[in-house]
């Protein structure tokens, strides 16, 4: 730590930081634009100017940019002297000369960093009296709106998009005062992280197009701290509502999970919540169609139907722990099935077994950025866990970055570090069943059938620990295994990444073996598994039975009642099996968000709350339990499934009336391993002083007018008895603890960058600690190596091994039903490698007929050089391929042109 003197006051600061970071971390207001805690310094905007003094006798000092000056012991600076203040005001005046001053019609208005910094600098009177320069805007696709005239040329967009996220289609064009940030031509921004431009841009150049369609000012939004439900990583989000609709998603900073960013599926895949297909009220099957009924009627009838009957419960990885647990309690453990087929469930269980053992470190998503060598087995992370891909892109720069450190270039000097690093990456190895987007930053790639990916992994493990079984692989693969092992051993922090997406247990085991072997060599190894859904891990922590077992236990007396929780079974497995299963039951109660194939078979459908209308706990891939909170109280009957379950349970059942926290308490009693979930968030009776934490900001307007077209008296606002949050603007106005922070807002800081005030140090931990509890950190059970070696894949003549190919937009059920994401869905296809296609006499675009679940599908051929011979790829989770149980063997027929 160094002592620094700012405006004659002494402070302590970290010498690895620059003066801007130091000032902000000390809570001082120093305006900036081009700097960002995750993008570091470039010194372009000149906004963070301060006066730096040579020594104690220096009275004049020199104007410097705080972001480019290191913290050094006894450095003396001033933010407040006139020269510094005047320069900062002058600078704002200059960068505003071409700004349109269109705040009243700008989507950023009221949460604009440029507005904040302008006010902070004191500039208000405009002297520029000439014409402004104007630009033409571009169509950038369904996610992002472009308004270039507002640009102040801070360069943060391209630095994030190109340098940080690896995007290729956004750049800076032109020169002097005619700088343009856009695409080479109008078109959809292709990068998976484009949505972060909305938060990275300090003004209204890049704004959220989905918000624009139902625009609301920040101050009129009701917000809740939430967790993204669109993949298994559990990124933290702020979900915001007005007039009963979710308006937008912002990243909720969590230094242990997603940091500042989100992927586009996470940010824009929320609109299914507002869909016309939402189940908003209870429905009852009458004359083969579903008819809306009163809530009261539904509850009474269901209670009657279920009374005294055997109950079968199907849980869901999309539902909270509490909802799953309550269903399990009601139907009984032996009648509760995880709504996942065995092929996938066993893999999740395997992952849990390894993660839970605590044998090697399972890093958090954000910690991934700190590893200096990476080996991915099988997983196409850009599509199965996008934010992991973003963080791996940072990790691959760590080894080359050491060179910059060797030249005494501070880590925060981004431009200089990038100059030294150039395009160098590595060591970074990817073994996958096809080409993946991260291949472009890989040291070397290996493409093979999942079994051979696993075999390469086993060979690497053997190379690290010769006591492990040997794999007789090809000379080429053997050499690669040696070099991967060498690179991992040379690294300080090697990371192994795998997952469940290829349905290969061997891959999961091979990954574990490598990590175990590295740990034995005293490496600080990390093992990161990708889990498929938001609560896949949580679900299998409280259940051990698969969908297949539910299917096998035939409902012999026809008298059992089936309860399906937040799960469209037709997405889980093939149509015939689900049809047969559902046919067995006369009474099927389905709790669902949206109309789907399963609700069509229900006798009763109950409107289940999504993340937007429900409270609950979910557990991500690393075993981190996190709480999400309902955003608003809808005017329909939608509510948390656990609430519905309480209501339809027989009156008098112990669980039917207990508080949310007692569900959690009971859960922990049944599953002591999950003890940590009790401390995931402050209890419902937590108060700051005597106050709850408001979901609405202090400047929320028009509450008294919202319903005046119906009734002039203001209705009593709803109360939240389940959490420490309130649904109104009244309550504590300071900084709450991280787990229950519904929005970022601080005096003078109205934009998302108010987050600076919520962190102990900018870019660091939040006040009260980052939220979420890792459940397995204390465990250290002794799990052994996995000794099985899979056989090498042998292609068959006339038959192909069908692999699932994942798409960030399309493979996930719910996000795909959001209109903006829906525009990005791929067309269905069948992927063949070039030589298989050549042998079969087909070319790109030819139609092939395949039989999926008894139905013939005509799919166009997409050539995919990355696929191994003998395998084909089908897009996972699209309407046309849904329910397909991968992997399987398939034949295809060329369909003649008519």
């Amino acid at each position, binding site marked *: 730590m160094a002592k620094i003197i700012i405006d004659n006051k002494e402070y302590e600061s970290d010498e690895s930081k620059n003066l801007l970071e130091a000032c902000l971390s000390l809570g001082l207001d120093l305006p900036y634009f081009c700097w960002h805690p995750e993008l570091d310094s*470039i*010194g*372009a*905007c*000149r*906004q963070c*100017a301060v006066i730096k003094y040579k020594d104690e006798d220096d009275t004049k000092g*020199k*104007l*410097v940019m705080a972001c*480019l000056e290191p913290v050094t012991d006894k450095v003396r600076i001033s933010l407040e002297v006139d020269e510094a203040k005047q*320069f900062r005001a*002058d*600078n704002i005046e*200059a*960068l505003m*000369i*071409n700004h349109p001053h269109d705040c009243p019609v700008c989507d950023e208005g009221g949460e604009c960093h440029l507005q904040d910094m302008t006010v902070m600098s004191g500039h208000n009177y405009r*002297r*520029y009296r*000439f014409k402004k320069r104007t630009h033409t805007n571009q169509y950038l696709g369904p996610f992002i709106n472009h308004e270039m005239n507002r640009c*102040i*040329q801070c*360069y943060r967009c391209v630095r994030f998009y190109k340098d940080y996220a690896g995007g290729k289609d956004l750049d*800076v064009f*032109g*020169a*002097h*005062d*005619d*700088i343009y940030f856009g695409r080479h031509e109008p078109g959809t921004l292709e990068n998976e992280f484009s949505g972060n431009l909305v938060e990275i841009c300090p003004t209204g150049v890049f704004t959220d197009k989905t918000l624009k369609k139902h625009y609301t000012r920040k101050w009129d939004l009701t917000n809740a701290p939430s967790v993204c439900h669109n993949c298994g990583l559990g990124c933290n989000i702020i979900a915001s509502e007005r007039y009963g609709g979710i308006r937008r998603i912002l990243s909720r900073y969590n230094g242990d999970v997603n940091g500042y960013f989100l992927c586009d599926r996470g940010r824009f895949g929320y609109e299914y919540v507002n869909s016309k297909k939402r189940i908003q009220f209870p429905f009852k099957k009458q004359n083969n169609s579903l008819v809306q009924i009163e809530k009261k009627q539904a509850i009474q009838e269901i209670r009657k139907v279920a009374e005294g009957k055997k109950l079968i419960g199907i849980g869901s990885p999309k539902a909270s722990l509490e909802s799953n647990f309550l269903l399990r309690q009601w139907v009984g453990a032996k009648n509760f099935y995880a709504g996942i087929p065995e092929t996938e469930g066993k893999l999740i269980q395997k992952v849990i077994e390894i993660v839970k053992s605590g044998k090697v470190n399972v890093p958090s998503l954000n910690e991934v950025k700190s590893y200096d060598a990476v080996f991915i087995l099988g997983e196409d992370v850009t599509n199965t866990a996008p934010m992991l891909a973003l963080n791996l892109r940072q990790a691959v720069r760590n080894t080359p970055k050491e*060179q*910059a450190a060797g*030249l*005494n*270039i501070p880590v925060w*000097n981004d*431009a*200089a570090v990038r*100059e*030294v*690093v*150039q395009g160098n990456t590595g060591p970074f190895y990817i073994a996958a069943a096809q080409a993946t987007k991260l291949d472009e930053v890989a040291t070397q790639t290996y493409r093979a059938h999942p079994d051979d990916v696993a075999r390469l992994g086993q060979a690497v493990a053997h190379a690290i620990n010769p006591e492990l079984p040997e794999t007789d692989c090809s000379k080429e693969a053997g050499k690669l295994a040696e070099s991967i092992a060498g690179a991992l051993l040379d690294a300080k922090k090697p990371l192994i990444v795998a997952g469940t997406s290829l349905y290969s247990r061997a891959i999961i085991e091979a990954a574990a073996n490598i990590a175990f072997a590295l740990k034995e060599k005293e490496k600080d190894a990390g093992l990161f598994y990708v889990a498929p859904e938001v609560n896949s891990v949580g679900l299998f922590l409280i259940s051990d039975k698969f969908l297949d077992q539910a299917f096998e236990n035939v409902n012999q007396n026809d008298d059992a009642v089936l309860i399906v929780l937040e799960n469209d079974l037709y997405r889980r497995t093939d149509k015939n099996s689900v049809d047969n299963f559902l046919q067995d039951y006369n009474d099927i109660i389905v709790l669902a968000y949206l109309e789907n194939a399963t609700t069509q078979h229900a006798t009763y459908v109950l409107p289940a709350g999504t993340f937007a209308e429900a409270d609950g706990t979910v557990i991500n891939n690393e075993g981190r339990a996190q709480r999400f909170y309902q955003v608003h109280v809808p005017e329909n009957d939608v509510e948390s499934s656990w609430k519905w379950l309480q209501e339809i349970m027989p009156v008098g059942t112990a669980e039917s009336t207990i508080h949310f926290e007692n569900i959690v308490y009971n859960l922990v009693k049944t599953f002591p391993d999950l003890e940590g979930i009790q401390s995931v968030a402050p209890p419902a009776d937590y108060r700051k002083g005597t106050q709850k934490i408001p979901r609405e900001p202090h400047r929320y307007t028009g509450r008294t007018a919202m319903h005046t077209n119906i009734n002039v008296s203001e209705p009593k606002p709803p109360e939240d008895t389940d959490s420490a949050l309130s649904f109104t603007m009244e309550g504590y106005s300071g900084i709450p603890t991280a787990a229950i922070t519904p929005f970022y807002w601080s005096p003078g800081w109205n934009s998302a960058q108010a987050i600076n005030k919520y962190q102990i140090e900018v870019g660091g931990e939040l006040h009260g600690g980052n939220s979420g509890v890792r459940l397995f950190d204390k465990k250290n059970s002794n799990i052994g190596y996995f000794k099985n070696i899979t056989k090498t894949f042998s292609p068959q003549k006339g038959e192909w091994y069908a692999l699932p190919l994942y798409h960030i937009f399309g493979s996930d059920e719910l996000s795909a039903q959001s209109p903006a994401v829906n525009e990005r869905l791929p067309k269905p296809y069948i992927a063949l490698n070039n030589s298989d296609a050549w042998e079969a006499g087909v070319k790109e675009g030819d139609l092939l007929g395949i039989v999926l679940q008894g139905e013939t599908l005509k799919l166009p051929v997409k050539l995919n050089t990355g696929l191994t011979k003998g395998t084909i790829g089908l897009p996972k989770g699209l309407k046309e391929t849904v329910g397909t149980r991968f992997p399987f063997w398939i034949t295809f027929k060329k369909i003649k042109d008519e």
Partner: protein
Amino acid sequence: MEKPLTQHIKNDNTWLSLKDYEKTGGYQALRKALKLNPEDVTKEVKESGLKGRGGAGFSTGMKWGFVPLGEDVPTPKYFVVNGDEMEPGSFKDRLLLEGNPHQLLEGMIIGAYAIQAQFAYVFLRWAYHQAARAITRAIEEAYEAGYLGKNIAGSDFQLDASLHVSVGRYMCGEETGLLNALEGKRANPRSKPPFPGVSGLFGKPTVVNNVETLCNVPHIIANGAGWFKSLSKTDEGGTKIYGASGRVKKPGLWELPLGVSLREILQEHAGGMQDDFQFKGVLPGGGSTDFLTGDHMDVTMDYAGVGKAGSRLGTGTLIVLDDKTCPVGMVLNLERFFAQESCGWCTPCREGLPWTAKTLEAIENGKGEMKDLDILNFQTRYMSPGNTYCALAPGAMEPLQSALKYFKEDFEKHIHEHKCPWKKE
């Protein structure tokens, strides 16, 4: 009077071939240098006092000394010749490039040897077609004669060189902007530190030297630092190619001892003002230097002398302002150029220069207001050194701030009369 740089340049628009150059003693300095330790070459150049002739005037030997030598240093290292002569009013490097390309190459190879570089680039202004032909041919000849490639002149030293013709931006003349351009990136400058000697081209140790600077090097090595120092009239060493443009009788270039007086250049070499034209002021070192006036005729034209007078030696090429040319118009012309050439990276330069140019344009067109003078004065403070990312904008402010000082009445006259007094109705 010795004129080491220009003595062999022919007047017939042809350049010295390798053969001709060798006849003048060419490449002997290189042979001599290759027998010295690289450190000793740098030491000799340092002792000579040679300062960068591109405008900034930084010690060449010191610059070379920043590059790490030895086994465990980043490689490859680069040596770059800055031939992107785009300073308004400057055309001195052109003479050297077109007239004696081998003299430059020899300086470059010696410099590359001193820092133990593996690659050298000549970065050339796009418009210098004749120079491009000369350098291309000279590099071919140097390879053929063994002055480039492996085992240069029988030594262990190896150097490859090539010509890079710029696409043409003023910013490419700034050494770090040049390096970015050479990497294929936007010609934005870089923040220093790190300096190019530590992290330059492609992040490797690099030296960038101006053409005229490097042409001095073979002579320093051949004749020694003491000889070089003795060439100048002051203690800064060497000769300088001075130039003059504007309404003088004999505009042109002259190699003279560093430190001759402004008067001598203007009166003796440029022949004084043309008949009917009076001297009003002069930019002593190109477009981005402060005006000097008739009161400064005895200023010695070296780094210290011009500095003391409130301007900079810059490139040493004078732009003379006469009484029949509007000073506001002249400054406007310069500021339009600088505004156009701003890379758009930092706020003051990107926004301040066009604002300055538009304000001057309003004044020149009779639409000025008295408060415009406050704006112009504000701009000169706002874009002062240190406030901007590189030296472009502060340089652009030099002619403006001095014009506001020396020709204030002319600005006011424009505003009061609502027209340019020099413009005919």
